[in-house]
């Protein structure tokens, strides 16, 4: 037994000793690998961290540009709320002021787009989006959303409107002038008069035309009015009309409404509304509210003209049209 142990122990020691040497090499390799791993990881963190700082900086500047987009819209909305038309817009500086130009603008590496949509007549939603190429692998994008309200036009207590006078003709036709020779090709009698009864309701004014066969005739009423603001956000015209007497079939027989800057005869094609072809007598009808903001772009004097136009009646006949509750409203 003792002999056996005396042989085995030195052998085991020798084996262990040799294994320890082998372990040392593996340990060295492991240690080196671990060190390399740590160094690579740290350097990766720092190098990509630097990239992150650059991307974060670009992101901050993109945010500032997106904010700038909203501030520009704010400035433009104060000057003219109606300039905020729905759709995509780019920004430009012209004449020392912000203005929309194109659908995008390109400050340095960034692309900015302002998208305006209508929430209601006096509220716009503006989305200011700035995008850029953050790195070769990815794109950056920042969107800010703002709502802009036309406070000067919202709420009855804050409204300040002006309107044409004597809309209902309940006592007279003061303020309104009749013109009987807008178009006069025959020798028929044309007249305009205020009637005390039969309007919608109370009094009304009429346009009576005794037209000759195949001879065009047109007459109109007008009233001047003076606005005090540029680019009004909203201005409207309302009227009631009635075909009281329908003489005969004509190529065209319509009621036309014009908003003109001059008091001269109106020009067909520039009307803001027409009744459509009148083919018989009618009851009183209200025209839909007509937006005339685009017709009064700057403060000044304008004329609302409401006429009846008969083209080529197929025989001698009389046409009578009634007008009531004629109102033009504009911000003051």
């Amino acid at each position, binding site marked *: 037994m003792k002999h056996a142990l005396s042989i085995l122990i030195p052998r085991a020691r020798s084996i262990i000793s040799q294994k320890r*040497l082998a372990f*040392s*090499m593996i340990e*060295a*390799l492991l240690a*080196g690998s671990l*060190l*390399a791993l740590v*160094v*690579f990881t*740290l*350097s990766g963190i*720092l*190098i990509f*961290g*630097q990239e992150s*700082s*650059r991307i*974060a*900086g670009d992101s*901050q*500047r993109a945010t*500032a*540009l997106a*904010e*700038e987009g909203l*501030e*520009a819209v*704010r*400035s433009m909305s*104060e*000057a003219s709320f109606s300039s905020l038309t729905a759709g995509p817009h780019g920004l430009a*500086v012209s*004449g*020392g*002021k*912000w203005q929309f130009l194109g659908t995008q603008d390109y*400050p*340095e590496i960034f692309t900015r787009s302002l998208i305006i949509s209508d929430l209601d007549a006096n509220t716009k939603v503006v989305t200011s989006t700035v995008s850029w190429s953050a790195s070769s692998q990815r794109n950056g994008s920042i969107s800010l959303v703002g709502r802009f309200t036309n406070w000067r036009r919202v709420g009855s207590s804050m409204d300040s409107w002006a309107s044409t006078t004597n809309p209902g003709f309940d006592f007279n036709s003061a303020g309104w002038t009749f013109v009987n020779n807008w178009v006069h090709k025959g020798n028929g009698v044309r007249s305009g008069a205020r009637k005390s009864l039969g309007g919608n309701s109370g009094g009304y004014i009429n346009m009576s035309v005794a037209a000759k066969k195949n001879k065009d005739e047109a007459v109109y009423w007008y009233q001047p009015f003076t606005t005090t603001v540029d680019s009004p956000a909203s201005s409207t015209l309302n009227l009631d009309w009635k075909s009281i007497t329908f003489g005969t079939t004509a190529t065209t027989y319509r009621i036309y409404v014009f908003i003109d800057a001059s008091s001269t005869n109106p020009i067909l094609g520039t009307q803001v509304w027409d009744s459509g072809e009148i083919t018989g007598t009618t009851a009183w009808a209200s025209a839909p509210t007509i937006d005339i903001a685009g017709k009064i772009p700057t403060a000044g004097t304008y004329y609302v003209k409401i006429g009846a136009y008969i083209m080529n009646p197929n025989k001698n006949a009389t046409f009578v049209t009634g007008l009531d509750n004629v109102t033009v409203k504009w911000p003051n």
Partner: protein
Amino acid sequence: MRKSAFTLIELTLYITLAAVVLFGSSTMMSLIFEARTKDMVVNEVEQQGDAVLQIITQSVRNATAVNSPTPETSADTLTLDTLVGTNNPTIFNLAGGAIFMKEGAADAVALTNSRVAVTALDFQNLAPVGTNDDLRVSFAIAYNSSSTRQVYQYSRNFYGSGALRQ
């Protein structure tokens, strides 16, 4: 005998491994230090630019009036009135490569430090006459270093706008 031979191989391997590890480590350390320096340079420029932009645009939004530049004009100095009488006028301008803010009779305070150099400070009042002032500020910031090494070269342009709230 066998132990001695093995120790020599071991020694050779160790030295080789150590050389590789040391070379790799030193290269990595060099890269790390360079990355750290660049990181510092980038952050210095980006953060100072953003901070100044925030201070100026926020001051404009809180102001009660812009005295200069007037609507539809531009200037290299911004003069504001604020709700706090003793801070009037509040002036922003560029001097010696730094942006300064001066409130009332107090001394001007530098908003940027000497590690960066600011140029091309410009204020544009882009509001139409008769509406609330809308100030656009723009400037360029570069890292301030006498070294020509690429790691110290970094500059950016900054733009921002603020409109009066009243």
